[in-house]
């Protein structure tokens, strides 16, 4: 290498300035959004009228009618119980599937693929669709709701767990593997203890989510408070609807704070 090789600086020009793609993207996005608005036939007039009326409309909810409060609380109890059972079911399924769906723990590539696909399938099915199916098979009641929540969120939990397990330090896995531990022992000693805290966070998140979802499962006949809300709204009984919404809201906020507190203590 000779310093003179670098000499002819005159012929060197700066590389062309990269074109800034952001305006193109923004324009394209706006065009797509405009197309969608046009295709969905959303009329801004309706929206404007709607917004104008909205104030008046929401004022109808001003006086919640708590005359049936004990009934609502009972329904909320059913909803919470449904969410709990759904979450426990999901936890059980995910506990067994996640290690199989983690690349570094899976005993064979085939088991890995099968477990991954099972989790994907469970996740892809919306829980209300599952609830519809389970109601058709099991009849009305909270049980099909709990099953639907369980199946759907097992997919989520399993995926979260598997991803956490894949992040377990390779050295720790080898440390336990080098003693001759087999697959279940690997999972129990190198796997779960290492991700325990993360896993608890995920379970709380899923429980939280299931409470929200359980409160609408009633719409498809799977028990809980959702059906009552659906009925009162259809009867334009704004007082009762307002009371129901408040009960749901209060419960969810309490759960929200409780799980935030628990997570804070775990973290």
């Amino acid at each position: 290498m000779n310093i003179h090789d670098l000499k002819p600086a005159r012929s060197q020009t700066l590389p062309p300035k990269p074109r800034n793609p952001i305006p193109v993207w923004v324009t394209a996005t706006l065009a797509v959004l405009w197309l969608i608005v046009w295709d969905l036939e959303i009329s801004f007039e309706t929206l404007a009228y709607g917004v104008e009326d909205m104030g008046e409309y929401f004022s109808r909810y001003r006086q919640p009618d708590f005359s049936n409060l004990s009934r609502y609380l009972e329904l909320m109890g059913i909803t919470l119980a449904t969410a709990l059972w759904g979450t426990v079911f999901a936890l059980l399924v995910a506990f067994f599937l996640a290690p199989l769906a983690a690349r570094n723990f899976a005993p064979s590539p085939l088991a890995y693929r099968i477990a991954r696909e099972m989790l994907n399938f469970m996740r892809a099915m919306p829980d209300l669709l599952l609830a519809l199916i389970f109601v058709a098979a099991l009849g009305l009641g909270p049980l099909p709701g709990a099953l639907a929540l369980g199946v759907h969120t097992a997919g989520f939990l399993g995926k979260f767990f598997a991803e956490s397990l894949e992040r377990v330090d390779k050295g720790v896995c080898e440390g336990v593997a080098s003693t001759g531990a087999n697959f279940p022992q690997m999972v129990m000693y190198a796997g779960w203890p290492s991700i325990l805290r993360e896993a608890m966070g995920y379970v709380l998140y899923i429980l939280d989510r299931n409470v929200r979802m359980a409160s609408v499962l009633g719409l498809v006949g799977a028990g809980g408070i959702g059906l009552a809300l659906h009925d009162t709204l259809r009867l334009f009984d704004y007082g009762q609807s307002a009371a129901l919404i408040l009960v749901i809201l209060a419960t969810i906020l309490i759960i929200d704070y409780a799980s935030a507190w628990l997570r804070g203590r775990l973290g």
Partner: protein
Amino acid sequence: MTTVSTWRWPTPSGWPPLPLVGGVLALLCALWLTAPIVEVDFVRLIGSLGKMVGFTGQMFVTPDWNYVPQLLAKMLETIEMTILGTAIAIVLSLPMGILAARNATPHIAVYRLTRDVLSLMRALPELVWALVFVSAVGLGPLPGVMALAFVTVGFMGKFFAEAIEVVDRKAVEGVRAHGAGWLQVRLFAMLPQALPDFVGTVMYILDHNLRAAAILGLVGAGGIGYDLVMSMRLFQYDRLLLIALAIYLVVTLLDRASDRLRSRIIHGKQA
């Protein structure tokens, strides 16, 4: 020698730690108490297994091919609702996020208020808001989009506020030192730093909203959901099969795409 003395846990006493035992007992207790409420009945569950298989069997009929054009139209509507609702929510959640971030908010009272509003917005599922909006603006995709956007602002606002709260202090101070104003600091120092996190979140939200949009039709708020419920009620299994497949397909595709995008963002972009 009894089993108690041969088997022991790796603790000083040989028994499992108290918090664990307490936690497990509390959970079992809760499950036992709630079992009658949820009507958990294993006999019924086992008994209905045959029914379930029968039901699943019924779903595997020759699909109603004539329905495909309508299915495609409805799926497109579902996807459009998802995109529009998410886009509106992104635009609205940026200012909300700034107001709800401890280090960007103009006043602590504004911070608390915005946080509470956001948690109210995301407290109820889309379907409940859809019910309310349907009664307000009538049937169609509009209330669906409104419901999606409404709940999504609640989530995105919070995520965004949290992303802003962890941005690097030094860069913010650097921009401020050059005489940037209140809004400029937020636009040029905080937003760009919080953006990568934000993109990952958007993919999650898109994923979630697509599933939500697929069922909003249940209450008349547009999308595939209405057809889903109708074919269920009318026992049109030839349609139901197609609908379920279509939902599965679209959700899975989006899932894969978002996984790929996320890992690209996390592991750095390769041109």
